[in-house]
């Protein structure tokens, strides 16, 4: 095959300029197409570079999450799988379609939605999903009030999620209400959609571990359709403190020693007493955000405030009273 070394004409010409020169008879169709091809190459190269950068950023975002080792391992596996499939395609070997419907099990605040959102971005940059957006829905968004309404509502949500992830929170609630409930109709509709559009849609069912296991047991067809099951364990005290530190660092705040001890005390207390929801990141976020608001109220009253004061959260901010 003849490889053209490229014409001397600059590729910085706009497409309309190339057309103009071609019409005027100043360049031949071969030269025109050569310029257009090199412009296209440049665009593809830039797009690939951008995509690579975004993927790296998303992976860093995932790595920054505390704990969640099974998810991180899964993403590395997927990344390797996609790369190998691409290499196989180039060699003309058989490639397997990727079925990535998942079940996320865990208590609220254990990172299910956050992980789903990051996964969407990562899979988009890997080329598995076209858009990578997350459509978060619950029972009320899927189940209708009269016959035929449910299928229509479910299909609408599925359509919104094409090219991304449909994330169904508290998915087990679709099966509650027995035989006459419309939730079953929604499940049937989802099953069809996930089979028909498996290359264009990822469905994630999320909810409490116990309820989700029961839900999948009562719907045997569902279990086999979700090849990936991930359990999000509760965070222990050390992890919760790490999350608190991370949240503060991201917001450019810091705890003084007393405040830090107080946060640890509150978290320890909650882990011991709240049985259903022993440890989660949302509790940490609430403590931090409340403290930030209290710190703001305290600081506006002071006259001379330096950088350190603006950044520091004190014991009073955590406890709610003034020192």
């Amino acid at each position, binding site marked *: *095959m*003849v490889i*053209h070394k490229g014409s001397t004409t600059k590729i910085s010409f706009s*497409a309309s300029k*190339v*057309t103009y020169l*071609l*019409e*005027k*008879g100043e*360049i*031949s*169709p*071969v030269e*025109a*197409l*050569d310029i*257009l*091809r090199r412009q*296209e*190459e440049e665009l*593809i190269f830039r797009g690939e570079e951008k995509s690579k950068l975004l993927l790296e950023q998303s992976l860093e975002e995932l790595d920054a999450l505390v704990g969640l080792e099974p998810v991180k391992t899964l993403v590395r596996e997927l990344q390797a799988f996609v790369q190998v499939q691409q290499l196989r395609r180039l060699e*003309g070997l058989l490639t397997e379609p990727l079925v990535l419907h998942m079940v996320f099990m865990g208590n609220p605040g254990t990172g299910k939605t956050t992980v789903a959102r990051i996964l969407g971005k990562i899979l988009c940059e890997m080329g598995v999903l076209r858009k990578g957006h997350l459509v978060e829905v619950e029972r009320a968004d899927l189940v209708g009030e009269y016959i035929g309404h449910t299928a229509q509502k479910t299909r609408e949500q599925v359509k919104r999620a094409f090219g991304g992830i449909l994330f169904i929170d508290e998915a087990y609630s679709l099966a509650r209400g027995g035989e006459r409930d419309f939730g079953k109709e929604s499940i049937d509709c989802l099953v069809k959609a996930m089979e028909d559009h498996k290359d264009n849609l990822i469905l994630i069912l999320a909810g409490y571990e116990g309820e989700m296991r029961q839900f999948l047991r009562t719907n045997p067809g569902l279990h086999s359709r979700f090849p990936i099951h991930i359990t999000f364990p509760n965070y222990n005290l050390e992890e919760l403190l790490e999350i608190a530190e991370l949240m503060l660092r991201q917001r450019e705040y810091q705890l003084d020693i007393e405040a830090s001890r107080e946060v640890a005390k509150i978290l320890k207390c909650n882990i011991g007493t709240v049985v259903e929801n022993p440890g989660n990141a949302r509790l940490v976020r609430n403590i931090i955000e409340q403290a930030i608001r209290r710190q703001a109220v305290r600081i506006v009253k002071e006259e001379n405030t330096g950088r350190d004061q603006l950044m520091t959260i004190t014991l009073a901010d955590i406890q709610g009273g003034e020192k």
Partner: protein
Amino acid sequence: MKECLVIGKANVGKTLFVINFAEYLGLDHIEVKISFPNGFSTVKCYSIPQARKELTGLGAHKTRCLQSVHLEIPARKGRKKLKITDTTGLMDTIHQDVEIRRAIAQTLNVLRQTDTIIHMVDAHNLYMSEASALLGEIDYQVVQFAQMRGPYCILANKMDLPGAREGLQLLLRELPGQYVIPISALHKRGFKEVKAFVSRCC
């Protein structure tokens, strides 16, 4: 709806392919949207024999604008819609007729935006030609350009003529790894493979 562009040098059989492919898919009349290089467009309805008579010819550059036909391809329970566009024949050198130069520029413009590229070459001519290179320079450029884009295939046309088989072998050797479908646009041979290809792409 996906757009499929039929591109290639002049006189390789692009227009006849589009008309006969439409007939192969079950149409007895075609609505052709004719888009001129100056921006004007019009729609004309032809019966298949009439289209063959009026739109094709033995000389080069009979087509001097974009001619699009909407097709429907049966797929599973439904039908896939496709717009197939016939283009002005490309050439290696600068043509002296400004009208043809404009039409070629129009073809290259639409090439940058199309979803699927069908590149047509004359298999008979490949064998008979005495040129030093097997394909014209413009064909190599099309191959390189189309490889970067989405779905792409080469139709080796005029397989009904003597020497075309040898021409096809030369082509396969020249462009290893490319998807080449041998066809005869005149006798509608190889259209099943073309249908499968466009069906996968749209």
